[in-house]
């Protein structure tokens, strides 16, 4: 990935993360504000409910008090024990009084707790009220919550008890009003809020027990979603808050604050649960708006960031790219590469330093070339001196021997002359050969490339040296061939390649004066053809290996030091490379790698 793209991504990510961060922060703040508002509204509604509860309770108590003072009730109390005939005349009494006094529940109980007349359960006349014991204790007490057992259901109501006593026969008047939709509808609800009442009739949640003033019937088809919250309050008997998701749409979420409603008496039984719901529609709408805005701003920001960062990255990266390009040129050998310095910032300083570096490198290279040239000349001079000195010394001796024979033994001069002449000719011939080799090295021809099979060239070389390998004048050298005949042809000059392999074979033979094994291999290695020439000779040290391809360097007593230099030159001219693996005493292996295709 280019530096410019990286910069682009960094800029875009920065903008996106910034917008996302701001959006999240705004969302968090919004949520906190809504939650705070919810808490305040819930608290206000609970206070309002309690106030309404007390108000209605006082109203119920007042009505029951007045009913207890009615003549009819006083006469009932005065009558004392009730008979069937009394029950018959009282059958509708509670109902008619309850209607007149607008009470939903009204019962008259005798001193034993038996129902004389009941508005809500007229058929229960003569039966004892199961809650009489606690009801009698609540006489003259403020109104309280009570779950009234009806024939086929229970109903939650606000009740009050007042006793009327004439003589020794009290009559208990138990009246109440239902906590129903009307009661809930009387509450002044802020927009988005609603109040539901759950009558705790059963151990587990029942939708039928839910009073929702907003619906036409007791529960709604999805009221079961309140089950978890109601059940939790039933178990914990504590106030709880929960979020109800009526549908997958977040706007249908509603936060419910559940408040347990307890009855009178010692056990303070859980009779109902007040559910204050606060719609999250407004919050969801606002959240959606924030999210949409964030996406819009983020999207626009990213586009803008891409444009701006593209421009900025271009300005920043263009000098860097030029530097990179110049560095690549330097790496490619063009040491004179220079970059434009476009400022005094870090990039400008870097470009200036680069220019100075390449200038310095160029100067050092020229100095190095001159030094190497001098060194090469010195080495050449040394080698020439060394090579020429060897034949010159016998020449000098032979000439001095001739002079001495002429002076001191004229009679033997002829014989000495003949011998010296042949020596002189031999040494001159030697000098000629030396000069010839130097001449040849200086005139290395350019390779004439053609498709050749290297295994065939190696075989030809071995064939050429077969006689020498088995000559009786030296220790025997065993030759092993491991040639890959399926090797594809390479583009090479067969004569030069033949010469290079021959030089390596000669070197190997020279390194095995006491005989050994010469191994020649050809193989394929990736996109290259490989020729290996291995011997089991004396081997070389690491230092020798490093210098072995230097022209005029030789480890042999009578070598010119040009053989391996010629090999390296040939391999190099073919676009290949040569290396050597060697260990003193264990032989050497020369490896030539030639590409199948030259570029």
């Amino acid at each position: 990935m280019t530096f410019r793209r990286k910069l682009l991504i960094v800029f875009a990510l920065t903008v996106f993360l910034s917008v996302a961060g701001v959006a999240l922060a705004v969302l968090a703040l919004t949520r906190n504000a809504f939650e705070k508002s919810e808490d305040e509204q819930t608290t206000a509604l609970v206070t309002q409910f309690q106030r309404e509860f007390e108000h209605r309770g006082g109203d119920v108590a007042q009505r029951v008090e007045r009913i207890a003072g009615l003549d009819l009730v006083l006469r009932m109390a005065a009558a004392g024990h009730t008979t069937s005939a009394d029950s018959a005349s009282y059958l509708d009494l509670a109902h008619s009084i309850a209607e007149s006094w607008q009470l939903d529940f009204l019962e008259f109980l005798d001193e034993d707790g038996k129902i004389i007349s009941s508005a809500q359960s007229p058929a229960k006349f003569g039966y004892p009220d199961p809650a009489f014991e606690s009801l009698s204790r609540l006489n003259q007490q403020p109104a309280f919550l009570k779950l009234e057992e009806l024939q086929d259901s229970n109903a939650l109501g606000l009740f009050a008890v007042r006793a009327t006593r004439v003589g020794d026969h009290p009559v208990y008047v138990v009246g109440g009003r239902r906590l129903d939709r009307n009661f809930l509808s009387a509450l002044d609800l802020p927009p988005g809020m609603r109040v539901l009442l759950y009558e705790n009739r059963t151990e587990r949640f029942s939708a039928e027990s839910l009073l929702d003033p907003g619906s036409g019937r007791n529960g709604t088809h999805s009221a079961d979603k309140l089950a978890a919250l109601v059940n939790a309050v039933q178990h914990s008997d504590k106030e709880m808050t929960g979020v109800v998701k009526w549908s997958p749409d977040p706007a249908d979420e509603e936060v419910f604050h559940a408040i347990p409603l307890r009855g009178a008496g010692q056990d303070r039984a859980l009779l109902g649960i007040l559910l204050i719901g606060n719609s999250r529609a407004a919050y969801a709408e606002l959240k959606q708006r924030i999210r949409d805005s964030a996406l819009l701003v983020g999207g626009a920001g990213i586009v803008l960031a891409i444009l701006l960062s593209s421009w900025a990255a271009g300005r920043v990266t263009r000098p860097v790219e030029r530097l990179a390009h110049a560095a690549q040129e330097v790496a490619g050998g063009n040491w004179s590469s220079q970059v434009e310095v476009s400022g005094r910032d870090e990039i400008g300083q870097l470009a200036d330093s680069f220019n100075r570096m390449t200038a310095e490198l160029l100067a050092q290279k020229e100095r190095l070339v001159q030094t190497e040239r001098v060194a090469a000349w010195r080495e050449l001079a040394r080698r020439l001196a060394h090579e020429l000195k060897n034949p010159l010394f016998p020449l000098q001796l032979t000439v001095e021997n001739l002079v001495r024979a002429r002076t001191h033994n004229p009679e033997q001069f002829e014989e000495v002359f003949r011998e010296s002449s042949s020596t002189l000719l031999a040494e001159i011939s030697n000098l000629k050969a030396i000069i010839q080799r130097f001449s040849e090295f200086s005139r290395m021809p350019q390779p004439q490339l053609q498709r050749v099979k290297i295994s065939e060239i190696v075989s030809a070389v071995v064939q050429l040296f077969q006689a020498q390998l088995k000559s009786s004048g030296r220790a025997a050298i065993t030759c092993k061939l491991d040639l890959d005949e399926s090797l594809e042809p390479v583009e090479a000059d067969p004569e030069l390649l033949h010469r290079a392999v021959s030089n390596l074979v000669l070197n190997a033979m020279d390194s095995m004066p006491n005989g050994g094994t010469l191994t020649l291999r050809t193989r394929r290695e990736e996109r290259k053809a490989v020729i290996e020439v291995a011997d089991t000779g004396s081997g070389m040290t690491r230092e020798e290996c490093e210098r072995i391809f230097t022209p005029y360097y030789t480890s042999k007593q009578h070598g010119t030091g040009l053989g391996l230099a010629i090999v390296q030159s040939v391999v190099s001219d073919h676009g290949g490379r040569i290396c050597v693996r060697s260990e003193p005493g264990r032989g050497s292996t020369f490896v030539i790698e030639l590409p199948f295709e030259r570029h």
Partner: protein
Amino acid sequence: MKLFAWQWLAASSLLLAAVVASGETRPRYGGTLRIEMRAALSSLDPADRNVPDSFGRRNVTALIFDTLVTFDDTAHIKPALAESWQAAGQELRLHIRHDVKFHDGTSLTAETVAASLRFANPSWKVMAEPDSVTIQGDFSEEELLAQLTLSRNAIVKRDAGKVSGTGPFHIVDWQSGSRLTLAAEDNCWRGRPFLDSIAVEMGKSYHDQMTSLQLGRVDLIEVSPEQVRRISQEGRGIASSMPIELVALVFAREALSPEEQALRSALALSVDRTAIRDVLLQGAGEAAGSILPIWMSGYGFVFSSGVDLSKARQLRGQAATIPNWRLGYDTGDPLDRLLAERIALNAHDAGLALQTTSSPSPDLWIAHLPLEGDAWNSLGKLADQMGVPLTKRHGSLEELYAAEQAILKSGRIIPLLHLPASYVASPGLRNWRVRSEGTVSLDDAWLESARQ
């Protein structure tokens, strides 16, 4: 002279008083009688078995149709559309009254009578002769004649969905289930009624009927039994029949095991009928342990109607499992609701599980069964409804008792109460009466408000 003058004055005053008195009691022709009733009849055909039996239906039928024979006030068969009859072996020949016309103007013929009887009783073999019809079957003369008094055996001419009768009133307007207007039949074989017409509003609750009466919108209404005492105390013109309506708990099916039969007996023993009668019904009717009321059978006291909770609990204890019975009732009748609730409470006292329900398919329900004026007719009809086969449908008192026992032993029915059919009329309706079988007789009724 002075004495004569005084004598003349006194005689004139007496004559005037007599004239005024005779003017108050002399029937007047004309006027429209307005009636309201609870039943909402979907058909006026008395043989339509889809229409539940009720006193209201019987009243309407009696106004439009006639039977071949009928009971007189002494519970003896008397002629109606049949002038006479002769029994011979397994046959009963009834001679059809002459010069009787249906409301559509056609004459009453033996063929029409036979067709009507065949329609109402598909199992009967009825043959028409020129002036008589012969009914063949495996029943006695008394049994057959008693059955012919039933309103379902009223003679009806059926023509393209329309019905026509020979009764004192013919149909003018009929809106199924809501309204019926009848007009006096001038050529009725029984003579023209005093009333010109009758307007019947159907499907009215007891409460609505009473409200209409108090507002003067109606002349004759039905009265709920528990209201009888109060209305009587108010001095209104109320009339009741003998206890003719059986209120009973009817199970949807027969008891499948002795254990279930024992539980049903426990339920019967747990119901405090006296408290129900005294309080919920305000003293109306009679607590019943039998199907037939005492006045009809004479032996009703043999069947206990008292509470025996200890025995009920004992019977309940014999059952390994207690079924949760669902007790149905007429949700439109407040008294029925109270009855159901009280019975559920009583059952609970005996350890039984009984829950009131408005479900259309309860395990048992409170049934209001209008009995017939004849004991055998009542038992026979009930046995047919309960699916209990009766070996005899007419006979001695012992056989009547045995038949009633057979129905009770089926376990499908628990008698609770016998209630009278009660009616209240406005003061302007005169000369009306309630028959012992619970229907209203308007044959001689007239309205004070009618023209002279």
